[in-house]
């Protein structure tokens, strides 16, 4: 398995940047070498959408009555404002996004559920990332037996679909908390950062500036985190965002199977309730549709951030 699957190494791409400039600068000079690569439109759009969702979640907690997430606190199956349900009832201003089959306000569910879902992704990814940085640097820098063990272990763990082990876990343990769920998912989030960082460290170890630092007597710690780490920042961000996506997909998957936290609203849980109550056939599209749409927007924003970060770390991608 080639470790550098989709990530040509840093030094190679910056060296050959000059060659790429000549032939394919079709973007009408939108990017020239003096532009700040961090300010590319994909990154800006992605980050803004994500921030918007987070801020809305935070503000919503204060201005909206979140007690409406409890079963039976609203009339059943009301459509969003401006629509009619099969019984001919119109939407009510009190519940602008409609209500579900168990008498919960969808607006409140989304306001409470979205931060929970994002939090699972962020925590799982953070833990996975830190583990990955540690293991990747150890493997690449120490080498030998340590490297072999870490490499084989990450090769092995990357093959095992997280969803299945987690299904086994949760059906044995029953209810779990949000944090517990994040930690469990994090157990499957360290492999790809480990592989990525290991590959980068291996290629950087031979580069001039690291050799220079070694000759001038810098400590291993300083070389790893002072010299190499700054070069890895775009990769680390990219890997982090990719992991957030994977973690959320896994969490939503578990929730849609009816596992995960049982009493805390999450977007996946809302979808699970909707499917299980036959919302599809009863034409209660807002019940499953709104959380689905919100998740889709979230994933698109994460993808945009990831593509933007790719452009930062791989200058060749900017020109096409």
């Amino acid at each position, binding site marked *: 398995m080639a470790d550098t699957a989709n990530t040509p190494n840093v030094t190679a791409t910056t060296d050959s940047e000059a060659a790429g400039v000549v032939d394919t600068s079709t973007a009408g000079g939108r990017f020239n070498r003096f532009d700040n690569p961090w300010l590319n439109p994909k990154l800006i759009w992605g980050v803004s959408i994500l921030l918007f969702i987070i801020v809305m979640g935070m503000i919503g907690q204060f201005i909206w009555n979140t007690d409406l997430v409890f079963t039976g606190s609203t009339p059943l199956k009301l459509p969003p404002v401006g629509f009619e349900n099969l019984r001919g009832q119109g939407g009510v201003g009190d519940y602008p996004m409609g209500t579900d089959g168990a008498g919960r306000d969808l607006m409140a569910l989304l306001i409470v559920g979205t931060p929970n879902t994002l939090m699972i992704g962020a925590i799982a990814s953070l833990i996975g990332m830190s583990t990955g940085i540690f293991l990747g640097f150890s493997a690449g820098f120490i080498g030998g037996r340590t490297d072999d063990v870490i490499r084989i272990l990450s090769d092995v763990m990357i093959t095992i679909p997280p*969803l299945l*082990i987690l299904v086994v876990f949760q059906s044995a343990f*029953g209810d779990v908390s949000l944090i517990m769920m994040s930690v469990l998912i994090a157990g499957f989030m360290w492999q790809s950062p480990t592989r990525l960082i290991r590959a980068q460290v291996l290629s950087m170890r031979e580069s001039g500036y690291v050799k220079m630092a070694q000759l001038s007597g810098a400590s291993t710690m300083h070389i790893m985190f002072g010299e190499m780490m700054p070069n890895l920042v775009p990769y680390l961000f990219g890997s982090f965002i990719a992991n957030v*996506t994977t973690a959320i997909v896994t969490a939503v998957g578990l929730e849609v199977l009816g596992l995960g936290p049982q009493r805390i609203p999450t977007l996946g849980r809302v979808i699970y309730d909707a499917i299980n109550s036959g919302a599809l056939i009863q034409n209660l599209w807002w019940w499953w549709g709104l959380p*689905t749409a919100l998740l889709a927007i979230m994933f698109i924003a994460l993808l945009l951030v990831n593509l933007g970060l790719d452009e930062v770390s791989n200058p060749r991608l900017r020109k096409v």
Partner: protein
Amino acid sequence: MSGSSGGGIPKEYVINRLITFVITVWIAATLIWIIPRLSPVDPAEVMLGRMASGGAFVEGSDQILAQLRERFGLNEPLWMQYLLYLRSILTFDFGLSAASFPTPVAALIWQALPWTLGLMLLSVIITFIIGNALGAFMVWERTPKVWKVVIPSMMIFTAIPPILSGLLLLYLFSIKMRQWTGNEFFFPLTGSYGLNVEPGWTLEFAQSVAYHGTLPALSIILVTFGFWTLGMRGLMITVQGEDYVNLAKAKGLKPRYILYKYMVRNAILPQVTAFALKIGLLVSGQILVERIFSYNGMGKLLYDAILDQDFSVIQGVSFIIILMTAASVFIVDLIYPLIDPRIRQSTEKAA
């Protein structure tokens, strides 16, 4: 490609891959064994409790409990339990299902497996071809301008997991379309073949399977091809700047010939290895899609087992799917040196 020197794949490489495969299966099996033991509650009791609360009286509950206790092993020393478990799981003996007692779990799995395998092979192959082709055309300088706008905008789908696309397609094509157009023309809501056809090697059955399989396959293809497209794009951009491509152009070779023989052929290699990284997610995605479409595969079996708290089935299904995943990665690893001679050379050098 100077002939396949000395009969193809070097031995150390195969042994190396084989060891990884065995370790993967072993770790997965061990995890599945350890996890229920770490649980503060007795899964057997929990399971029966849930079943009893659902149906008041559980037929043959003593038998089930005894069977479960034997599986979770309470009479033997721990290491012995572990060895027994490994033996039984390697012979595909997962005990009896509690929900449909006394059907062996293995029988349930063998029924569901062909559906999952079929759907997966089909969608993975289609996705791989479409995804890589689009990725290559995104970079190729002779691609019509229209496509250079259309393809990137299709990337939006990449972000969405198959479960959400499945929900949307199901709603649009099975429910909404039926309402709008009148009747029965559009895709079915559930199942992997019609209730009125007899399973067998008949045209009628094949049609029914295709008809029921289209939406699930489509919802997977629609959202996964982008992964390959994006990867291929990056690789093609790297390849595009290489000297041998410039030389080929200077030689005046046909652009199409350069695209296929020089650029795609080199760029596609890391994509094959990327498969190993992606397969875990693909499998999970498909399981959830099967659940949405009530497709008679492993996903539905797993979901039903979760609902019934049928732990032996959950164990069995998880193990088989992980085994399948590891096996396909192993196979891809074996095919890889055949298409990339550099692997052969580098391992030969190392030896």
